[in-house]
């Protein structure tokens, strides 16, 4: 997909966006919608953490969720692959559709869902096994045991995650934990890619990394966008501005329940937000 270089007016002083992106139409053709949430509310026990969020994510685009700490970004992100199921007391209401299919329904196989919607976490969390085994983990659990196919898959995934060259020499000997933070995070991305997902969720994937690794991950995200739909949570507004097509701004009300203030093309959110709250936030008045 050729990238049309229509870059909005610089958002913050001296922001140099490495790969300028097209402003994306939010109201897209329905066929292009990869994920849609409708009136999603999530609570932990009695406490509402996310209230009534409806938004859509285009296929092969990057949506960034920004907002102050505690506004429910991570909680909301986890509803896409139903990771909230794992949290005792968490309950999700509303609809979350993947390709038009509501994933919240009881007869949906979460295992299958999570294969199609991969996830990368804030802290790189490779398994304490060799690099090879880390990447082969998902495929193996899917029943892929053919040596050759596995080798191919591991190689492709590591290449896609831009890690192959750095690790190819001791793939099987080196533990995933012996890598640097940035490499570990790319390994985690490779591990997700190996299960052949359609959507990748990333919860502050670079916040534990150094500047160089961060740039690397951002670059990688832009590359992956060609083939995957990505939803990323970030605290770093510059990062959101740099990598995403669409930005959703969350904040929380007095009762501390998070809600969606506005969502729109990244350029627009950072230059002409329609809400005062958004403006206050991105201008650094709070947060």
């Amino acid at each position, binding site marked *: 997909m050729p990238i049309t270089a229509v870059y909005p007016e610089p958002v913050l002083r001296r922001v140099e966006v490495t790969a300028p992106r097209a402003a994306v139409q939010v109201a897209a053709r329905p066929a292009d919608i990869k994920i849609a949430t409708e009136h999603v509310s999530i609570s932990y026990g009695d406490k509402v953490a996310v209230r009534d969020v409806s938004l859509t994510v285009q296929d092969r685009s990057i949506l960034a969720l920004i907002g102050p700490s505690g506004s429910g970004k991570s909680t909301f992100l986890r509803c896409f*692959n139903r*990771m909230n199921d*794992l949290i*005792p007391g968490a309950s999700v209401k509303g609809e979350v559709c993947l390709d038009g299919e509501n994933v919240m329904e009881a007869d949906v196989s979460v*295992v*299958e*869902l*999570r*294969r*199609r919607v*991969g*996830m990368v*976490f804030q*802290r790189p*969390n490779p*398994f*304490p096994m060799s690099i090879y085994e880390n990447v082969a*983990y*998902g495929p*193996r*659990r*899917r029943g892929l045991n053919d040596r050759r196919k596995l080798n191919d898959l591991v190689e492709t995934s590591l290449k896609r995650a831009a890690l192959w060259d750095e690790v190819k020499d001791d793939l099987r*000997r*080196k*533990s995933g*934990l*012996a890598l640097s933070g940035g490499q570990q995070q790319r390994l*985690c991305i490779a*591990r*997700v890619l190996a*299960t052949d997902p359609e959507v990748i969720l990333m919860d502050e994937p670079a916040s534990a990394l150094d500047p160089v690794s961060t740039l690397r991950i951002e670059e990688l995200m832009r590359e992956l966008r060609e083939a995957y739909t990505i939803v990323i949570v970030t605290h770093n507004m510059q990062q959101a501005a740099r990598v995403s097509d669409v930005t959703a701004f969350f904040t929380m009300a007095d009762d501390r329940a998070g809600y969606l203030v506005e969502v729109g093309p990244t350029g627009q959110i950072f230059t002409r937000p329609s809400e005062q709250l958004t403006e206050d936030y991105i201008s650094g008045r709070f947060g």
Partner: protein
Amino acid sequence: MTANAGSIGRSSGAKPSLKGKASRGSILADRAATVVLWGTGALVLLILGSIILHFAMAAWGVVSLSFILDNPSQTTLGGIMPVLWNSIYMLALTMLIAVPVGLLGGIYMAEYAGDNIVTGAIRFAEESISSVPSIVVGLFGLILFVDDFHWGFTALAGALALTFFNLPLMTRLSEQALRAVPQDERSASLALGATKWQTIRHVVVPLAIPGLITGVILTAGRVFGEAAVLLFTAGIGTPPHYNFMNLDITNPTSPWSPFRPATTLSVYIYKLNSEGLGAFKNQIVDGSAAILISMVLIFNLGARFVGRVLSRKLTAS
């Protein structure tokens, strides 16, 4: 400064030197407390040290290879081979049941248990057995296995009673080991589309292995020393000379058989103290106690060592 700044503003006069002796009393109290707390730590070591020294000296000249490998004798120092064998045999028999059941139970409690009445009952049961006196468990074994089942005093009855007694501990320790595995690892696996059981089997359990082994060994130490449970279940007597070539486990004369009485080392100590005869009685008890303590030491050091080696193997490159 704003209006509500009040009267006690920051003191502007001469500041006390940092090396001043302000609040001497509280500093002295702190020093005293530190000394006392170090003292308690030292006291524990002192007690343990003197116990070990006591048995080391008492066992000097008693414990030898032949003491470990010979049959008991009334006229000479003899050995403790059969009772030591029984201890090891009972340990193995007990762990054979307690480890798998405890591990699986631990998996349930750590990975599946929700907040419902059954789980509550399991927890209550777990806590209850841990606090039931061992003698009560022994008596329970006596009625159920020895008398009601007509097994008589047998290794099996003892091992089952021991299993009952140690199952909660084993379960608790496995649960702890499994819970110690970071949630991240589970999330990572589940987010990759692994099923819950795959996650447990391929990620959680392997990562918990050092903790699990530690749990097994600590339980083993407790099983090894237990006497009150066994007095009424596995029997208290002088074991015959065992013929280790007799591998027929259904034959009560075989030392491999669970259907025979099995006086263990700790029960033997109790027996010698109660009704022992012969010139070497006290030496034999001292030697046996020294061996028991050494085994406990070995179990502990072993647990630490194995745990460390395994976790290094699992985490390092």
